[in-house]
């Protein structure tokens, strides 16, 4: 394997997980854009998505790697996305909406509480050990022999891309999207314009959570094992991606996700695998300190 081929393979692998980070990052960025809240529990929604996907695969007997595997995978993604969408609605309604006027500290603590609750609930329901996720697609190798891409990787790219395209379509092409943008710009004015702000916020949570749920299924099938701990670390990395791209900025979240996945993969492959997680945290801190608006974000107003 030539150094060039090695590099290409590392690149591909990095971008694959980057796409998953991007999907989760979108949820963070949407919620922050609209109510300036860091939804600490968003990573757990992603994890729940992975488990919903596993449950769907097991209970509907969808784990047969035959032709039509893609269709079944899409169905599973759909189920997880819808399930997580509802979870997002529930969490917003029960935990966050009552605290809309509360100080930031209270909201953050509540979010952490929700995160712990969800983690533990899943652990109690599914067990603490890793759960095996069956292959949904045949394990083949496309490519020139040494550099290979598996069908699953291709699917991750395709699905992420389509979902992000879909999100752009909603945000810039529908009434809901207009309402979301208006609420993000100025919630009071939006309310005065007759926009049902509460409902818009709820939908934002729902959509962000649905995307995370889809990401969860892709993650679970790609790595073939899931654990209730996955949400915390991956969530933190996706948040880093959102901040890297510019929090509140949708294309930023996508760019940030891919970039972070790439950085991580390169660091792990060329420096050392052990330090991989430090990359994400270091990037996070550096961005927050040196360029808090991220790569594509606008200058943030100083709010107390």
């Amino acid at each position: 394997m030539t150094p060039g081929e090695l590099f290409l393979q590392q690149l591909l692998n990095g971008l694959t997980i980057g796409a998953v980070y991007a999907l989760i990052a979108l949820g963070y960025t949407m919620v922050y854009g609209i109510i300036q809240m860091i939804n600490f529990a968003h990573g757990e929604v992603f994890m729940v998505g992975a488990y919903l996907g596993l449950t769907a695969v097991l209970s509907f007997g969808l784990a047969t790697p035959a032709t039509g595997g893609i269709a079944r995978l899409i169905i599973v993604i759909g189920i997880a996305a819808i399930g997580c969408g509802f979870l997002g609605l529930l969490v917003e309604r029960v935990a966050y909406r009552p605290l809309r006027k509360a100080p930031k500290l209270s909201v953050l603590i509540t979010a952490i509480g929700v995160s712990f609750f969800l983690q533990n609930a899943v652990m109690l329901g599914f067990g603490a050990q890793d759960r095996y996720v069956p292959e949904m697609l045949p394990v083949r190798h496309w490519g020139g022999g040494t550099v290979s891409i598996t069908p699953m990787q291709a699917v991750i790219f395709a699905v992420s891309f389509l979902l992000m395209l879909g999100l752009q379509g909603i945000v810039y092409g529908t009434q809901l999207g207009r309402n979301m943008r208006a609420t993000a710009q100025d919630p009071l004015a939006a309310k005065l314009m007759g926009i049902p702000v509460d409902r818009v916020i709820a939908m934002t949570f729902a959509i962000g959570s649905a995307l995370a749920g889809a990401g969860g299924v892709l993650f679970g099938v790609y790595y073939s094992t899931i654990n209730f701990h996955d949400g915390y670390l991956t969530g933190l990395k996706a948040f880093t991606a959102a901040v890297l791209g510019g929090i509140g900025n949708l294309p930023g979240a996508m760019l940030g996700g891919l970039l972070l996945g790439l950085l991580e993969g390169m660091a792990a492959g060329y420096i050392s695998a052990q330090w991989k997680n430090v990359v994400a945290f270091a990037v996070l801190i550096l961005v927050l300190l040196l360029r808090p608006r991220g790569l594509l974000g606008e200058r943030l107003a100083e709010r107390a």
Partner: protein
Amino acid sequence: MPNPFRRVTAFFLLSLLAGCGKAEPVVKIGFVGPLSGDQAAQGTDMLRGSELAVEQAKTKEPVIPGYKLELVSLDDAHSPAQAVATAKRLAADGDVLAVVGHLNSSCTKPASAIYYEARLLHINPVSSNPEISRQKFDTFYRICATDDLQGPAGTRFAIERLGAKRIFVLDDMTTYGRGLANEFMGAAKKAGVEILGHEGITQGEKDFTPVLTKIKGLNPDLIYFAGMFPEAALLLKQRQKLNIPAKFLGGDGLFEPALIDLATPEAAEGMYLTTLGGDIHQLPTAQAFVQAFEAKYGHLGAYSSYAYEATNLALEAIRRAGRKDRAAVLASMKEMKRYDGILGAHTFDSKGDTSLRTIGIYTVHKGKFQFVEAANL
């Protein structure tokens, strides 16, 4: 303001008092292992071995006349910090006369210091890192082989049977994994085999594709992994996905059926591992145990026989002491010249290690572990 304060104080004092006033004459054996978390399968298997031993002991004469026998099981979740906490708990409990545990060397090693301080008999079933007994704690006894045997045995197998000349070594950076990897590499270097690289992976990590891609680029004959089965399963899967032709050899931490489930039989097919001991199904002294265990629990795991043996050894030491006294139990253990258990006849050296040391080689074939041979020692 005084109100919540008073309530809290009252709650606190009440709960303390609730702990007092229990006067049943009982003798306890402590068991610690990873009963939760990703290695729970192995920990639970070990616990069952201990439970069986205690259950059988209860049907016979009491171990110390006048006292009820109890097994106290605690969970260390393969975390050294929790291992120390559980060790302290057992040490503080005056009814506990011996401890069987832990599973992971990274847990056993710090815990052994606590047991030593408390003068509590500590019998270790399966932690194979040689450093633990080199601490020369007179409370520590071990009934399995150690990695200064397992590592070189693996090397010999790799060279002689698998024809490996270029090897890449991975470990999980734990006391056990790092220690075993170092033993393996030491023997490999002496034999003149080329070690292409040595990297550590973190337990709990999922994505090994970067390091595996790097390995793929170096094109070794063999990948050696010293670690535990959850990470090994992921390595096997991702090795398959990346289409790496190198063979795979691991240590005893992989010897758990869940490995094959997590990795899928296809990805695990043809892998090899060394284990601490030969095939228990072929050991005549163990057949009664095997039958009793399988009748009660179904399937026999890798470590249950060791926990069973260790528990019975502890019970024997207590029986010989004849009274509820930790020092007496320690003394009777020291005086025991020989113990005939299900694994054979043990005699213990000055460090507490057993004379019974065998290393086995297994492979995975058609979704099941298959005994290959007893290693050349």
